[in-house]
């Protein structure tokens, strides 16, 4: 059954809530005239429940099956975390209540900060950034602040490896830095010599992802850090892949100055179809003075206080309203406490083990881009499809019909037709074996030359391949009552 847009289900005067009569008092709206009809559709509650239930059924999700999106870390989202975040003592607290009435909330923020600092070996934490990319922004701002504090205005460049997430160059550029790309070596790591050659007094910092987006650990990382520091620059680490090493390696021990952490990747806050995220940033001693407001401090008498104004210190100002993504903090802390130090170490172990197992089981039928071991994800390129007429995209879409979400495609850019697979630690061996079986069969089928099968995929989904070009050429970004889309009639 097709589900129409909610606007197409309108019945005037119908309403999904019962509100009391408006108290008869005068208006104090001033000179502004009350607005006219808005155009919102009227539905009763049963229709609304059904609409969203049906829409949800058109989604794939972790709860439905394996979601091997490389670099996205789609792991199990425990319901305990949802329950905790909904405790009235967390969910029903206003951000501007007097501090005396929110001591537990501040304690939770302090405790989350302590876990993050301990796990990374870092000196300071900010919980303010709303998402990973926002955390990157925060980190680069701190680097800039540190250089500014030293009066060092000549540093105009940020170095970024070619394999980096798009957010890295976008962040550096947004902060006014020129972005210089560092090439990769044949084994998928940063080219140390090329890096050294670029380092100089005009470089503010290096942004590096480790494990990198090829799923590989940067072996030379300590040497890299030393070189960066020797050049007077700071070392930013993109923490997107922290899941691979959490509990086993402390980024501070690698010489990293600042790193953001995606709570939804490593600490299992739900992705929610695209957010909300949360991107705390941890800082080594070198950058600790440059933590933005707000942050929590504890008085000698044990009471927690919130520092909300930057004042005259080196800390820079606010990055968003209020104090951060509190709901995500509760979930992440519940996850950390559930695993503990021992469990988080096991998380890294199992994430890496699962990825290497896939690499081992697939390497004879697909083409691994680099030699293993990999970390939490394994990267293939499309050499195994050469001459078959089947593309990386085709493989991904055909995988959908096998009951799996596709892997990440065409990223990282350093290999051709990339297929980046991240199983995460919450998949069972049985689930991986099913996935291997499906993927091996598809590889086999591709070699057999059944191009039409692939190009027609997916077939078992609510929609078949969608025309993204048409969507971009003449964008239809909202429903309008006047122009009924032609295709509706065709349904």
């Amino acid at each position: 059954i097709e589900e129409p847009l909610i606007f197409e289900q309108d019945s005037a005067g119908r309403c999904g809530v019962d509100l009391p009569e408006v108290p008869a008092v005068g208006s104090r709206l001033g000179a502004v005239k009350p607005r006219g009809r808005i155009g919102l559709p009227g539905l009763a509650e049963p229709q609304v429940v059904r609409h969203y239930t049906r829409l949800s059924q058109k989604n794939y999700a972790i709860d439905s099956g394996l979601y091997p999106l490389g670099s996205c870390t789609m792991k199990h989202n425990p319901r305990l975390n949802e329950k905790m975040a909904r405790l009235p003592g967390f969910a029903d607290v206003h951000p501007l209540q007097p501090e005396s009435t929110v001591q537990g909330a501040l304690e939770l923020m302090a405790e989350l900060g302590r876990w993050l600092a301990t796990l990374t070996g870092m000196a300071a934490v900010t919980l303010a950034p709303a998402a990973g990319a926002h955390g990157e922004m925060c980190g680069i701002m701190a680097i800039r602040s540190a250089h500014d504090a030293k009066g060092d205005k000549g540093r105009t460049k940020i170095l970024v490896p070619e394999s980096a997430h798009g957010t890295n160059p976008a962040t550096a550029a947004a902060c006014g830095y020129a972005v210089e790309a560092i090439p990769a070596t044949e084994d998928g790591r940063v080219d140390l010599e090329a890096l050294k050659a670029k380092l100089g007094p005009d470089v503010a910092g290096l942004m590096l992802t480790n494990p990198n987006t090829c799923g590989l650990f940067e072996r030379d990382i300590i040497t890299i850090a030393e070189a960066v520091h020797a050049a007077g620059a700071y070392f930013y680490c993109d923490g997107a892949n922290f899941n691979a090493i959490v509990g086993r390696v402390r980024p501070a021990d690698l010489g990293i100055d600042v790193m953001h952490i995606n709570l939804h990747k490593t600490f299992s806050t739900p992705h929610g179809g695209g957010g909300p995220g949360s991107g705390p940033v941890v800082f080594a001693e070198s950058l600790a003075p440059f933590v933005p407001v707000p942050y929590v401090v504890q008085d000698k008498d044990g009471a927690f206080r919130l520092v909300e104004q930057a004042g005259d210190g080196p800390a820079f100002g606010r990055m968003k309203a209020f104090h951060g993504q509190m709901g995500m903090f509760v979930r992440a802390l519940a996850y950390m406490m559930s695993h503990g130090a021992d469990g988080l170490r096991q998380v890294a172990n199992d994430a890496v083990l699962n990825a290497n197992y896939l690499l081992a089981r697939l390497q004879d039928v697909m083409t691994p881009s680099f030699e293993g071991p990999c970390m939490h994800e394994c990267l293939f390129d499309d050499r195994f499809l050469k001459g078959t007429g089947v593309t990386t995209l085709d493989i991904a879409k055909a995988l959908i019909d096998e009951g799996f979400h596709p892997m990440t495609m065409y990223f990282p850019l350093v290999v051709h037709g990339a297929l980046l697979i991240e199983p995460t630690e919450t998949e069972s061996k049985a689930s991986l074996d099913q996935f291997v079986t499906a993927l091996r069969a598809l590889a086999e089928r591709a070699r057999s030359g059944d191009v039409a099968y692939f190009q027609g995929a997916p077939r078992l989904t609510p929609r078949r391949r969608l025309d993204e070009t048409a969507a971009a050429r003449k964008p239809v970004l909202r429903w309008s009552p006047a122009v009924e889309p032609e295709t509706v009639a065709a349904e």
Partner: protein
Amino acid sequence: MRYLPLTEADRRSMLEAIGVPSVDELFRDVPEAARLSGPIEGLSNHMGELEVDRALSAMAGKNLPAGSVPSFLGAGAYRHHIPATVDHLVQRGEFLTAYTPYQPEVSQGTLQVLFEFQTQVSLLTGMDVANASMYDGATACAEAVMMANRVTRRKKAVLSGGLHPHYRDTTTTDARFIGFETVVMPPAPTGGEDLLSEVDGDTSCVVVQNPDVFGHVRDYTELGKACQAKGALLIVVVTEAVSLGLLTPPGEMGADIVAAEGQSLGNALNFGGPYVGLFAVKEKLVRQMPGRLCGQTVDADGRRGFVLTLSTREQHIRREKATSNICTNSGLCALAFSIHLSLLGEEGFTRLAEINHAKAVQLADKLAAVKGVEIVNGSFFNEFTVKLPKPAAEVVEALAQRGILGGVPASRLFGGGLDDLLIVAATETNTESDMDAFATALAEVL
């Protein structure tokens, strides 16, 4: 370890398939000096659900839930009644545990929700197009300014003194690091301000808020025309989305960009986050917009479907040339917003706004009757400012000890100054007895 499905037997057989003797061997690329030999010290080990529940419930128990007492806080976050349906639907695994809908064939649910959300936001704000949400209202405001800079190729933003200080600060932080100029007007709790005199040929935009942070309802129609004449964009910020049920929408006042906070619909207070930023623009500005956009298209069989579109603006394609570094949106909060608004519909949303206004009028009358209290506002929606004979911060603390959450001191928002001003909000969740309790307690503490 209840979330980890591998058994020791699994691990052994998988290591064998990989051909390594131990999992440590898989970490051989990590410099030896940085490898930890055991669990990190200083943290507890794994815990059962019951223990975690106890520990976190104990922390939650140290907070005073706003709903457990008469509560009148606003200033950018509002306590509204959220129908039970909203949270039920939001928690469905297919919404909660899905990723960004990059694979449209298996994400039509999320995509159609976003398309509907974009339409709802467009309708509410009176604008042509909205995106699929931003982090929150404050970051939406900063992004709006940066977008205005791009569109006008100018570098100076004029910020009203009635703009929420967090929004102002978020914007000036970006200004400092990203490199543009901001003219910040002083707060004018009792009167107007002459924004236009600050607009010159370098000015990319003027940022105003409606109702403003003190609660005043403004008409920016004339300002919009004047900006247009000077080649600057008018950015209108809204922190209380419910006000859009009653007030002239920014689009009708000539706004070029609207940046708003959507928390009031569908989203709990959550001690400040996650919330959902609304971002809407005029048609001609679409390709300069930050954030995700969902568009309509057709599938291979010609059926209507939805995809993320115009992603050439975005960082994952355009990298350092992206319109913004924003990557995630606030998808689940947008879903909650959208469900709540769908339940309300035209009739419910309008009525809700009317009730909110009426409650605030009732409250204002009750507080005005308290000796020493003066209502500052000539106009307001569901929030207004009162002038007290004592520092508001002290009054609020004294009220809290009497079990009343009595508003937000202006000094807390502005970091000092305006000490005698208290910003007070009322919503449909406040009963008349709540208000009486507030007025009585206020009389006691003054």
